[in-house]
């Protein structure tokens, strides 16, 4: 089995979420809505989180470089590889694993500064999202900072594909039904979520497993 590729390290965290820093060249792995994991200590314990924001800061020199007529390829490489301007990835915690068991609860303690962060494999995604009954959705729905509809649409599309490949094409439909139940008393959010799911080809009438 291949070693998992580290996508960045933790900058700051709480029990609700964290911010991960990585170089621009490491940016290939994370994706908005992607599930990631942060190993806790030496055991197999992990914290799981969903990426809800990725942003790239500028600084004085970058602001100056954009005013040039053309930017040399070497200058672009220099800024992406050498300069100390990290990409910041905001993560919402949605559960954890302890002693081999998955919980859709907030972690007992936040991960620590400079802990390594890994993207979840399709197998990890199937295991986490297939465990329990979508309990982790409440962390997303409660979030004040995340774009809830867009995040759920992106997550359901990615997780639906993994579940479908694992022989559970019904997962995306079940997840959508669960969201409708959870949001039955919050019509504006429900409409926003359903609209995003529809744009992602994951509405109630979408084919099982979502858009391939």
């Amino acid at each position, binding site marked *: 089995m291949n070693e998992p590729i580290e996508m960045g390290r933790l900058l700051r965290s709480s029990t609700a979420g964290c911010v991960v820093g990585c170089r621009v060249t490491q940016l290939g792995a994370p994706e908005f809505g992607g599930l990631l994991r942060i190993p806790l200590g030496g055991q197999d314990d992990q914290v799981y989180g969903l990426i809800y924001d990725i942003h790239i800061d500028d600084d004085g020199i970058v602001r100056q470089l954009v*005013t*040039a*007529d053309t*930017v040399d*390829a070497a*200058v672009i490489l*220099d800024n992406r*590889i*050498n*300069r100390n301007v990290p990409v910041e990835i905001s993560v919402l915690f949605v559960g954890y694993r302890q002693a081999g068991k998955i919980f859709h609860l907030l972690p007992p303690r936040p991960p620590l500064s400079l802990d390594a962060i890994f993207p979840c494999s399709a197998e990890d995604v199937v295991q986490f999202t297939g465990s329990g009954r979508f309990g982790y959705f409440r962390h997303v729905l409660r979030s004040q900072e995340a774009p809830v509809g867009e995040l759920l649409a992106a997550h359901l599309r990615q997780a639906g594909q993994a579940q479908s490949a694992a022989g559970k094409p019904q997962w995306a439909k079940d997840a959508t039904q669960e969201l409708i139940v959870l949001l039955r008393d919050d019509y504006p959010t429900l409409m926003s979520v359903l609209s995003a799911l529809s744009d992602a080809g994951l509405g109630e009438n979408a084919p099982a497993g979502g858009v391939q």
Partner: protein
Amino acid sequence: MPINYLEIQKQVIEMAERSPARQRKQEERCQRAAQLLEAQANQLDELRQKVESAAAANSSLRCAAPFKEALTFCKDAPPFESSAVLLAADGSQIHPDRHDAVQFGVINAGALRMQPGSGEAPRETVTSRLLYHDDLEPPDGPLTEEVVALMRDLEERNLLLQLAKQDSDQQVVALTDGPLEPYVRDPRERQSIKKLFEDYFKNLQELGSLGVCLAGYVDKPGADLVVRLLEIGEMSEEDLPHAERHRPLRGLSDADLLHSRLQPGQRSAVFAIQSPAGEYFNGALALHFFYLNVGRAERPSLARVEFPAWVAREAALVDLLHAALVSQCRQMGARPYPYVLHRAHETAVVSMLEKQHLSELIALQLRQHGVEPGDLSNKQFGKNNMGSRTRYKQ
């Protein structure tokens, strides 16, 4: 206490009131200098002779001397099509401060290597040297800021040399910020300075033997080397021994004179530098320069580019330097400055926070070895406390 605004405001108003007259005077000087430039443009041999005569009578004379091109010569930037390696080095330092708890200094040199068009990512290099114990007490006198600055300049060149050797099979353009001539009052004054000075020249000579296209880039130059040449040029032979007193254009810089004459990307003629340091900078090391407009049509921006004779004598190297600098400055958009030099500076700079961290690290190590570090001076303690107020119940 803040500035006494009541008192200084009157002076600010007075300054502004006097400025238009001063500006008119400057414009008159500029017109006069432009006339002299046109009139003396092709009198290269005569001017060279006059500079030599004036320098013979006044050893501190510092001015330009004609090289091969007419004084009014200007040239568009050749396209930068070379596969040359660009190196830039810059340095920063922490001066030892007796008011600090721990006595130390640092010389930090940073460099960037880039090869535009190669597809390779640029590479950063940093070297850091801690100055402590005997370093802080040279036998021939105190470790002054002048000495530390010379040590920093030497470290920059050492780093350039080390990197240039790694690319000895390719054409290298090596840049530093500021003039190539280090600022030292009299290198013979102290043995330690003399040694640094000698190492500096040895280093330049090695760069020359590698065929490196070496240059110092002076941004927003304030020198009046060409203006001084024009003043000397209008003097009679008999008056030349008193050249230091003939300053009709005093206050006018070369940039004032040339900024409207050079179009974007153009360089001026190459000039030699007549300076007291000519005693050291001679032969292949003799200093030369051109002015370069790295700005745009609506906003000229002049730089002076200094280089040794081994570059000045090779038209291809002068063209390469010209093209590389214009190309590098264009990378920086509205505020042109060679990108590679900016990055070298960014790599070398030591922040106050880093100084503090290093100071704490040294204190920790000293304690681990049973040595108690000193204490901040009371004066420094008071300064550090300025502005930090506390409130009852906070």
